[in-house]
């Protein structure tokens, strides 16, 4: 995709992100940009710097150098809180759900809505409005949840995935990063997650998909970015590449169809 042609779609950009852990240069000057309503796959072998990149954008690590831009203006993400305030949500592989809490409580965890009124009243939760919002989110995802007041422990794996992703809708996140979303899933569940990610993308959300799975890349990604040893080595269009091209970029053997960047 030509970024210059549609500059207004660009939500999040990183410029020259670098991070060193001791003697290991985990990330060296990585640029990437995430566009609204589009899926960017981030690929690379173990230790290529994918997780480091995600952790910097989600506020877990601070970069040694480099900048982040949201809607073209520079932002500072010093903590996970800052990331969620900026509208950047991360869906972890383990989903980070509290199984003992119910669906609504999980969706709003850490950002609960309080009742309106006097100071005393504001101490209490506004359950009704949270439930309505939750229903709306599942409507958008097209997922049926047996009951919003049932604990997560009673839900199926697919429903749990939907709950983790519904968070992004409830928070009106602009960017959602998925960390290996299908790594532990079977075929049917993978299909389910792909469906959920597509619906999220259709809402205009910018999706960053960290994955090892070629099926994910070719089913979902509009662009694919390959990292190797902390460097950005290739950006490719999955519609014009083959899985072989991608694998070659990841492992480092030169290949046709790969545009060095």
């Amino acid at each position, binding site marked *: 995709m030509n970024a210059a042609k549609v500059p207004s779609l660009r939500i999040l950009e990183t410029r020259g992100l670098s991070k060193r852990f001791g003697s290991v240069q985990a990330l060296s000057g990585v640029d990437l940009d995430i566009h609204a309503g589009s899926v960017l796959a981030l690929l690379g072998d173990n230790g290529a710097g994918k997780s480091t990149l995600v952790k910097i954008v989600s506020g877990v690590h601070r970069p040694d150098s480099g900048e982040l831009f949201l809607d073209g203006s520079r932002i500072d993400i010093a903590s996970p809180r800052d990331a969620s305030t900026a509208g950047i949500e991360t869906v972890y592989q383990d989903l980070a759900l509290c199984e003992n809490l119910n669906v609504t409580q999980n969706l709003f965890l850490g950002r609960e809505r309080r009742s309106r009124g006097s100071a005393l009243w504001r101490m209490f939760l506004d359950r009704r409005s949270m439930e309505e919002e939750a229903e709306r989110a599942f409507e958008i995802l097209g997922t049926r949840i*047996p009951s919003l007041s*049932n604990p997560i422990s009673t839900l199926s794996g697919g429903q749990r995935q939907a709950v983790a992703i519904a968070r992004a809708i409830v928070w009106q996140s602009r960017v959602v990063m998925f960390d290996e979303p299908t790594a532990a899933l079977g075929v049917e569940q993978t299909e389910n997650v792909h469906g959920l990610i597509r619906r999220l993308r259709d809402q205009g959300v910018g999706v960053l998909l960290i994955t090892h799975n070629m099926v994910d890349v070719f089913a979902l990604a509009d662009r694919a970015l390959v990292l190797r040893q902390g460097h950005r080595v290739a950006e490719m269009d999955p519609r014009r590449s083959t899985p072989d091209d991608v694998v070659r970029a990841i492992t480092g053997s030169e290949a046709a169809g790969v545009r060095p960047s």
Partner: protein
Amino acid sequence: MSQPRPRSEPVVSAAPFKEKLQRISHGELGLIPVLAALLAVGIIFHIASPYFLTPRNLSNLTLQVGVLGVMALGMSLVLFIGEIDLSAGSVSGFCAVALVLLSAQYGLPGVLAIGIAILCGAAIGGIHGKLVTLVGAPSFIVTLTGLLVWQGAQRMLVGNQIGQILIDDPLVISIASTFMPFWLSLTLVLIIVGASLIYCARQLGSNRFSGAADRLGLIARSMLFPVLAILILAVLSNHLGVPVLLLILACVALVLTLITEHTAFGVHIFAVGGNAEAARRAGINVAKLKILLFSSCSAFAAFSGIIAVSRQYAADGNTGGGNLVLDAIAAAVIGGTSLFGGRGRIQGSLLGALVIGTVANGLDLLGHSANVKSIITGLILLGAVSVDMIARKRRIQSGAAGA
């Protein structure tokens, strides 16, 4: 799985009553086991002793349950986050002795002495919490240390004084020996009845409760507390009236219930108990929350020590000792609180304390020794944990079955 569904069908379907039944069948038993246990021990002792259900004995029972009840409520808070506080008994004893010394030897007014004792408890709990979160030591070990340290400190405070240190501060003594006048009790009962009726009427108006079963369930649920309050008033007015201590216990339970079940902080407590890592990622300050709860638990322990002083007009090196802390943990567990964290209710712990108190009271009436009490309480605890483990299996199965 995410199948497209017709627009007209609501995302969330189950009605409250159906939902409840479904949850029970999935092993979410709630307060059912502890209510059943309470009913069972009540019936057994009523059959075994003609004195059990007399106003005089029930009045005694409510007073006896105060110390354990307050400690069990505080204990629930740390159990909710998957921690434990073995030091609550020692802390309660230490603060009780501190209270008596402040009042009897240093002549501090009751209000001030009570305030200092509770702050002292809060500070001690804060230290425990800090050690748990900072050092990362298991709370079992930290509070076991606390148990030993504060018990030693309590005995050092008592020093070489022989026997009990007496207290004659009117405020401290009045806590456990004052009964409310009838008009006040009646007013409170009327407020409870009125509030429940308003709640019930408002809920019936909402479209959530449209089915007949749902409406009936709602009415039954809203009538539980008014009926209980009327019964308590009716029985206890035949003796000396409703003890102020019962009102204090009810207020503590009410406030803690509102906090744990209706505030964001309450959700965070259970989130930390269920999955601390997920809570941290959601931006919750887990360490701060844990320290606050350890601190509250010890403050409630101190308060239970104050009630003990108020009942005995004295404190000594053994106040807060014996089985008290284990009974408090048992009360919470009988009430449905999980030792693994993330599961339990304040009302459950209160009812659990009532079960243990009733067993102690009933066996006293029948003239059994403390040894028998200990055995019976242990067996009830075993029963409660077994019920919970079976329910837990059900929960895990129903979760897995849906996957």
